């Protein structure tokens, strides 16, 4: 039986008023690194939704930094990590502890030992960089932070293909211990 190691299952970007801006799902990969099982979108949407309450709950007390670390461990093997930016945009990464085949023996052990929060920092930083890049595109209209205008304008989901590809690349190339994506 091959040993498994953690991989990112889903990346969610939620706007200031808890409106989803983008959700990326990454499949479970099998023996040869090829995806062999798709994930259920609805299930992951619910998970992201439930993690929003944790942001609310911890908001007053978290004065320093923006890394919320481990939000919630949902019956192994799923764990959710979150990062709040100063503008209220939340970046959430869902990690599947058995999401891919272990490349090396040490990687296989991580699945048993668990992840450190700092393992995900490079992924969050890369996500933040991608989001900033997206904001610099003059044709992208950013989230207005006001629910009334949102009702008038409709969904503000991110449609930029470059951003979506970058998010998927971050999700695919991350592994525990990576220093920079």
């Amino acid at each position, binding site marked *: 039986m091959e040993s498994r190691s953690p991989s990112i299952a889903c990346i969610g970007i939620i706007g200031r008023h808890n409106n989803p801006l983008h959700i990326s799902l990454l499949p479970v990969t099998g023996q040869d690194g090829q995806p062999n099982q798709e994930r259920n979108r609805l299930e992951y949407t619910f998970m992201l939704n439930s993690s929003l309450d944790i942001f609310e709950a911890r908001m007053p007390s978290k004065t320093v930094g923006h890394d919320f670390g481990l939000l919630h461990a949902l019956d192994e093997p799923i764990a959710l990590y979150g990062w709040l930016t100063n503008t209220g945009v939340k970046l959430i990464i869902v990690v599947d502890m058995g999401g891919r085949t272990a490349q090396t023996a040490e990687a296989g052990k991580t699945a048993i030992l668990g992840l450190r929060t700092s393992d995900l920092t490079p992924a969050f930083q890369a996500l933040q960089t991608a989001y900033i890049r997206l904001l610099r595109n003059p044709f992208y209209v950013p989230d207005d932070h006001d629910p009334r205008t949102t009702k008038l304008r409709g969904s503000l989901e991110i449609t930029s*293909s470059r951003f979506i590809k970058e998010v998927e690349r971050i999700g695919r190339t991350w592994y525990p211990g990576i220093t920079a994506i």
Partner: protein
Amino acid sequence: MASSSKAARLGEEVWKSRVDKINAEVLTLTYGTIVAQLCRDLTLPATANKTDYAAVNAELDRMGYNIGLRLIEDFLAKSNTGTCSSFRETAEVISKVGFKMFLNVVPQVTNWQGVEGKPQAFGLVFEENPLAEFVEYPDDGRAQDELWYSNILCGVIRGALEMVQMQIEAHFVTDVLRGNDTTEMRVTLVRYIEDEMPPDDE
């Protein structure tokens, strides 16, 4: 070519000592907002939402023309270049001194066409375009084929050269934002403008 290296040195020297500089991100974001706003304001006659990209291109060219008329004075004062002896030299000065001074990029002069006396044209290939960093065209299917994002530069060159008695025509032929490999602008000399007497003058 001797004149091109002289121009290159002049451009470098003017850039280092005689120009004020601003943050490149401020310029990129400001220009981006202008183009995005034009796309929102100029719509096709019968519709409310579909951008008229031809009108946006024309407007950017017009804006560039007005900038060029004024910019040439500043350029001549700071760089102290004399009159160019040929169109070829004009091209070198534009690319190595002009663009270097104002945008800190040096486009390559390529694809020369014609000799003295016959219509002359050259191409300017931009390896990097500070106006268009991080820009992605909107996804409405038509922007890819119709919008020239940096069209203001064509207007600038047209306006500037008109003030030194050259009538030229400039337009973009390829653009990396559209998916091509390079960004190239073609500049064609139409004629040298002689001082003309006003009509009805005795």
